[in-house]
Structure formats: C-alpha cells, structure tokens
C-alpha cells in the first residue's frame, strides 16, 4: 500500500511543482540573456528590464522556497483533517503510512526546490566574479578538512538538512493533529499549538545544550575563547555541531511523528 500511496502523492503534487520550476528556470534564462547582452553592449537602456527581471527572479525564488513548505502544510491539513480526509481515511491504509508518505514527498520537493534555487543562482552568477569567489571559498573550506573527514562532513551536512527539514515539517503536522482535537476553530488551534510546541522545543534545546556543554570539548573551547588549536580542528567543530543538531532533530522528528500518529489514529475528530 505504501508504494501506491507514494505513487499518488507524487502524481498529485508533481504537476504543481513542475510548473513552478519551469517558470523559475525560464525567468532565470531570460534574466541571464539580458545580463549577457548588457555585459556585451553596456547600454544603459537595458538596465531597467534587467533589474526588473532580477527583482522578479529574486521574489520568485523566495516564493518557491516559501510556497513549497506552505503547500506541504496545506496539503497535509486538507488531506488529513480537512475535506479530503473523508477520502484519505476511507482507504484501507494505516495512519502512520499516510504520515510517512506525505512527509517524505514533502521533504523531497523542499529539497528539489532548494536545488532549483541553487541552479538558478549558478546560472545567473556564471561569469561573474562574486560567484567565482564564493566557489573558491567553499572549495578551500572543503579542502582544508582532512581527506578522511571530507566524506563524513558532506554526508553529515546532507543528513542534517534532511532531518532538519523533516522535523520542522513534522512539527507543523503535529500542530495540525493537535488542532483537530478542538471542535471549533481547528486552524487557529493548530496555529496556537505550533507556537506552543515551538516554545517547548526551544526551552528543551536550550536546556539540552546547557546540560551537555560541560561534557563537550568544543563548547568548552568556545566558552574560553577560540584557541589556535581549535581553529586547526575546525572540521571537528563543524562535525560535532552537525552531529549534535542532527541527533536533536532525529529525536524531535520521532517524538512529533509518534504524537501525530497517536492523535490521528486514536483521537481523530473530523468535522
């Protein structure tokens, strides 16, 4: 059943995202063409259309990042506690399967949207000094890491992005699951639940870092001011941060998932 759910979830979401990606990439190419013409002709008449196009692209990229998340949250609300829930819960599928499929597909599209943004920036920045400098900086940062740790660093970075995205989305899902318990104003209740959960999470994270700070060498280094040795082991610092935040994110992800699953399977309250 999971395979079928994945098939329909991808099918139902793909069309919306492909349109957005096509618009962004078309606008990127248009802006790049204007940019190339301007670089060659250096005409002041081309500045206004170039700046307008760049501004539109910037707004488009911001919207793409924002809308991918907003669509994922709205879709979960509509499918799991809104009108579409009547169809969702008619299907002979476990609630946990519904949640996992929606979460996975949403994370997938959020990451793809991020990649589209990066591609867009690269296309636009190609041939410009700023992009060259950024790439050089990134390259020297990675090459400064010991060879054995480079792979570990990249894997940790990717996993950290995935788990961070998943846990932040899952918190929205949990807030929606809490909101549906109310008989009225479910959306407002969900928003309130989100704010409350966010505050609890912040307090928990702060306490966790305070309690563990004495046991983790890099935090000790930081408290006493960074030493030369510390900068030499910068990669270890980044690895430690990624590892700790990754573990915290996994903990939150699992906790939010379990609460959401319990509420939607044992305390469902569809209007």
């Amino acid at each position, binding site marked *: 059943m999971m395979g079928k759910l994945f098939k329909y979830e991808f099918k*139902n979401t793909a069309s919306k995202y492909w349109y957005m990606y096509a618009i962004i990439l078309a606008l990127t190419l248009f802006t790049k063409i204007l940019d190339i013409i301007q670089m060659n002709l250096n005409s002041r008449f081309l500045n206004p259309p170039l700046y307008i196009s760049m501004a539109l692209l910037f707004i488009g990229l911001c919207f793409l990042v924002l809308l991918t998340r907003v669509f994922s949250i709205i879709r979960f609300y509509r499918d799991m506690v809104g009108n579409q829930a009547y169809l969702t819960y008619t299907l002979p599928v476990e609630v946990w399967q519904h949640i996992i499929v929606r979460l996975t597909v949403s994370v997938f599209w959020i990451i793809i949207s991020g990649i589209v943004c990066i591609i867009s920036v690269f296309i636009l920045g190609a041939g410009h000094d700023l992009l060259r400098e950024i790439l050089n900086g990134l390259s020297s940062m990675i090459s400064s890491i010991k060879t054995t740790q480079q792979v570990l660093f990249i894997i940790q970075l990717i996993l950290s992005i995935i788990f961070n995205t998943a846990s932040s989305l899952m918190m929205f899902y949990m807030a929606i699951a809490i909101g549906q318990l109310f008989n009225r104003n479910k959306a407002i209740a969900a928003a309130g639940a989100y704010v409350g959960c966010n505050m609890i999470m912040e307090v928990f994270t702060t306490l966790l870092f305070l309690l563990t700070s004495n046991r983790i060498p890099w935090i000790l280094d930081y408290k006493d001011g960074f030493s030369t040795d510390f900068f030499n082991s910068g990669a270890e610092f980044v690895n430690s941060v990624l590892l700790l935040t990754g573990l915290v994110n996994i903990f939150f992800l699992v906790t939010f998932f379990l609460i959401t699953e319990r509420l939607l399977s044992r305390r469902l309250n569809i209007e």
Partner: protein
Amino acid sequence: MQNNDSFLNTSAASADIPLLECRNLCKSYGALPVLYNWNITIAKGRIVGLLGPNGSGKTTLIKLINGLLTPTSGEVLICGNPPGVESKKVISYLSDKDALDSGMRVEDTINLYSDFFEDFSEERMYGMLKRLSIDPMTKIGTLSKGNREKVRLILTMSREAKLYVLDEPIGGVDPAARDYILDTIIKNYSPESSILLSTHLISDVERILDDVIFVSNGQIMFADAADNIRAQGKSVDQLFRETYRF
C-alpha cells in the same frame, strides 16, 4: 419509543458475525452529548434507513463507523473488527462531503479506487458511467453538481463491499437523479451485503428500505422493519411525520 438497549435487527439475525454492531455507543463534544447509548446490530441482506431531522446524530454515527470520529464510550464493530484497516476493506462509504479532488479526471478516481480496493469492479463503474453519458476523461471539477454526486455514488457502489454506508446519498440532487441513485443502490447491492443509508428525505427512499431507525437528539426513537410499519397501514413517511411533529 423503543428502548435503546433492546434494538436488534431480528429480521435477518443469524449465527454469522453481524456486519455492524454498536454496543453502548456514546459520543459527546465536551459536555454536549450527540449520541447516547446506541445499541444496534445489522445483519447481512438488509437496507436500513437511518432517518431523522438535521442534527439528530445520523452523520455522527456514520463517522464513528468509518473511524472519522472516536467514541466517547462504547464500541463499534464492523464484521467483528473495530474501525481500522480491516473494516475499511469491507465498508464502502459515501460521505456527505465531496472529497474528490477537482483536479483529477474521473478516470484517475477509478484508478485510485481500483488500486486501493480489491473489491472494486472497473467493469461495473465504466458500465454505469456509459449509461450516464459521463466521459471518464472529464475533470471532476468541470462536472455539474448532480453528475459529481452520481460519480461519487457509482464509485461507492462499484465496490463489492459487505457494508455500504451512504450519508445523504440523495441530498443534493434533483428528483430524476434521485430515482437513478436509488435504482443504482438496489441494482448493485448483493444479499450478502447490507446498506445503511441516512437521509431526511423519507418519501424518496422508503420504497427501498427493509428496516428503519428513527433518531432524534442523538437517541434512537424507534426501530423496526419497514414491513411492520406498512402492516399498520402507514407509510414510513407518515410515521416519520407523526414522530417528529412539532
């Protein structure tokens, strides 16, 4: 008014596990009770009308059967199972709200049902669509309200389910469409299954009913075989009007 605790659909009672059984079922929203101590059993081969005015608890019961709400106390069993994956395999549910995605084509919904329900008959579905002259390639969002209702109903009735639960199946359609819908219900259900349908349009549905349950304010007011009511020289509609007269 019949005692809530004693209602049993005896007309088809058998040693088999009942298709639907509610035991001391209660549902409240906060301090407000909306279903109070329901005890009903539905055996196979019956068309049961859940009849009552708006706000009497019909939809609440149907949501409890389909697992969309959680009982405050008591239990619902479908073929011996509480609402869950196993119960959903044997219940074909037509909700009072239209949950079909407007962006999907009729054919997409058929594929969806076909993929998820082993008992779904595509042949039956396409046959009914053809008789209604509805093109499977039409987008759901472009269908008229009546045709959309018909598509939802025939999706529901194209399953060979054990229990059909239909919430206001004729509520939003014209009289001609009502006849089609009721004929569809009769033609497509088998003696091995049962239908529980809720409505407040009694006169339209009474010809197909085997049993009736009158509900009011979350309680069962009366429950009996439709033939017993007719034997008293009354129609179900007449009895309903007498029961609910202000």
